[in-house]
């Protein structure tokens, strides 16, 4: 009931989804149709069922939900291991992104049992039965579990996520005190997996103009960097009813961050900085 760390998986077995119809607010091309059930591995003693979102752009048909049975004795402990096992042993056409397999690259972010996390750091034993795996929520899907992130990365580029300075370049590096450096702790660690942005209801409804928690956390990471000298311009760009103020402090972002960061707090810091600037 009390969650003190974002890696806690909810144990509640009721209200696993909002009581809305399955196709509530879903355009015809996005409706999920029943898929096929793949045969369970022969001779396996411990198996677990996985319901996985499938979409094949070449088939011309709608997304579907396929059921796979994973042999737990033949598979690593993480959800990513299960996906790799399925790709190797059952259906080689299953598409998903992965790289580091240890939670530092942010490629394998997806919606597992209704919350966003990295497949490589989510234990299979923490998943419901059957486990449900969807691609990152509210994204255009290229294939299966691979979302098109063009839009969110364009939003990231819009905040100019690089050091902007006017003072002439120093001979060596730009120095910071230990205290100044510590101000970006909890923000520079973001791996841009977009779990938070994809879990933000405000971004679901206004994602075209609202920047979303991941990008706003990055904006704060530059606003609070002592070496950056474009604070006023950055605040001018953010002060907008949609870009920043569509955040209604729902805090699904802080609940879901696989790195344990706090996008909700970063956004509150930006709002406070704007208020203080007005005086």
């Amino acid at each position: 009931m009390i969650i003190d760390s974002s890696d806690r998986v909810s144990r509640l077995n009721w209200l696993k989804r909002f009581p809305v119809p399955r196709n509530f607010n879903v355009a015809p091309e996005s409706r999920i149709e029943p898929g096929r059930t793949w045969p369970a591995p022969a001779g396996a003693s411990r198996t677990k069922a996985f319901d996985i979102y499938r979409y094949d752009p070449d088939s011309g048909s709608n997304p579907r939900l396929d059921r796979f049975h994973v042999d737990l004795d033949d598979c690593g402990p993480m959800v990513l291991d299960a996906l790799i096992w399925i790709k190797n042993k059952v259906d080689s056409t299953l598409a998903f992104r992965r790289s580091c397999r240890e939670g530092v690259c942010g490629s394998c972010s997806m919606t597992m049992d209704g919350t966003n996390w990295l497949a490589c750091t989510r234990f299979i034993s923490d998943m419901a039965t059957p486990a449900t795996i969807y691609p990152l929520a509210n994204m255009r899907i290229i294939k299966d579990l691979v979302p098109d992130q063009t839009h969110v990365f364009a939003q990231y580029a819009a905040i100019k996520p690089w050091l902007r300075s006017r003072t002439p370049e120093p001979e060596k590096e730009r120095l910071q005190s230990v205290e100044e450096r510590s101000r970006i702790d909890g923000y520079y660690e973001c791996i841009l997996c977009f779990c938070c942005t994809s879990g933000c209801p405000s971004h679901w409804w206004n994602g075209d103009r609202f920047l979303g928690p991941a990008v706003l956390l990055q904006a704060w990471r530059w606003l609070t960097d002592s070496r950056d000298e474009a604070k006023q311009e950055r605040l001018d760009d953010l002060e907008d009813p949609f870009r920043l103020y569509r955040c209604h402090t729902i805090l699904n972002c802080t609940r879901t961050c696989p790195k344990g960061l706090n996008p909700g707090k970063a956004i509150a810091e930006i709002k406070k900085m704007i208020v203080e600037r007005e005086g």
Partner: protein
Amino acid sequence: MDVKTIAPATKALRIRPLSPNIQIYRPQLTSVLSIANRMTGVVLSVGAIGLVIWLSAAAAGPEPYDIVQRVIGSWVGRLILFGCTFAFFLHLCGGIRHLVWDTVNGFDLWSIYISGWSVVAASVVLTIAAWAAGLSVSGWL
């Protein structure tokens, strides 16, 4: 080589599907209290119309006031009034929680959950207390 000749045969251009969001995302205390704050706000706005009707009836004279009082005093009327009271306190406590957040305090997950459940508990207690006080003043308790 002409690109068109090696491109696959005409296939209807298909818009990429949007992955499900509200249809599959798990309700959490964070999102549930946020939507509850919205809904209680709507309830209070509608309830404000009821308040205006009640005041207008009082201004119009004893007879219309008596009719409105009897509607409110019916068990349906009291149930709606009870719901409005709960909505009022949930919205009030939720508003205070948001004011604290505006000062950039209480953002660690533990505080978010403690303050969230406190808002729920406080609204229940305050609603029951307000009704107990109201009923005892009017002599029904």
